[in-house]
């Protein structure tokens, strides 16, 4: 329940919409439970219903960053992504400022997650927060497992970049290493 609500909250963005989304998903799951042949797959199955409810009924209400620029199936996407980044970020990426990560506030991390494209936000939440496997997340999001692997690499790198930008704003980073 909490996991469903957490993902719904991130998708729908507002408390009441997230509650409606969970209620709709639970109702649809209840009425379709006989179609679930393998009960051990309940978790990815209900996340998939939640996602489908969101796309069919809720997404038009939400304003989210475009996903059109995602090149998530490209095997070399991570190397290409890193190549696009400023040298200062690459220095930070290779020599992380441990104290920053020790001190970073939860709200700063949440802001960094919210700055990601929607598909990346949901993938990170399902895997790193809710503990789904890549296989379960692929089933929940109706994408190949390779897409999940690729999304995780890109999402975590972009998350680091967002944190780096916030550390820069706070005057924590230096280009001199």
């Amino acid at each position, binding site marked *: 329940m*909490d996991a469903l609500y957490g993902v719904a909250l991130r998708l729908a963005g507002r*408390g009441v919409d997230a509650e409606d989304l969970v209620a709709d998903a*639970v109702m649809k799951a209840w*009425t379709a439970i006989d179609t679930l042949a393998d009960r051990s797959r309940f978790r990815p199955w209900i996340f998939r219903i939640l996602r489908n409810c969101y796309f069919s009924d809720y997404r038009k209400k939400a304003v989210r960053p475009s996903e059109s620029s995602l090149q998530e199936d490209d095997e070399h996407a991570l190397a290409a992504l890193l190549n696009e980044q400023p040298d200062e970020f690459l220095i930070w990426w290779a020599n992380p400022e441990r104290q920053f990560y020790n001190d970073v506030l939860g709200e700063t*991390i949440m802001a960094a*997650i919210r700055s990601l494209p929607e598909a990346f936000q949901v993938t990170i939440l399902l895997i790193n*927060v809710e503990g789904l*496997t890549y296989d379960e997340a692929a089933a929940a999001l109706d994408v190949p497992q390779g897409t999940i*692997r690729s999304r995780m690499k890109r999402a975590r790198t972009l998350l680091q970049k967002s944190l780096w930008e916030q550390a820069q704003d706070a005057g924590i980073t230096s280009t001199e290493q």
Partner: protein
Amino acid sequence: MNSTDDKHDIGCLKAIELFYAYLDGELDDPTANADFEHHMSHCRSCYSRQEIEQLLTKRMRESAKSQAPDVLQDRLRKLMDGLQDGEH
């Protein structure tokens, strides 16, 4: 990133490609797993990066966990009751 003369070392670029699958426990290939761990055993930069990523995952888990509000739990309970009544 470090350079190395170790011929068995996969190098930092390959290690980066394997990084998140390893941390998420999704690197199923035993050879790739061993190669990654071998690289981590002597590359200080990648090892440090790994520690930071693990720390970030832990902080994310602590920060992003949501709790469904009581009002939603009540609503779902009523919804379930209604659906069960409808079946009878």
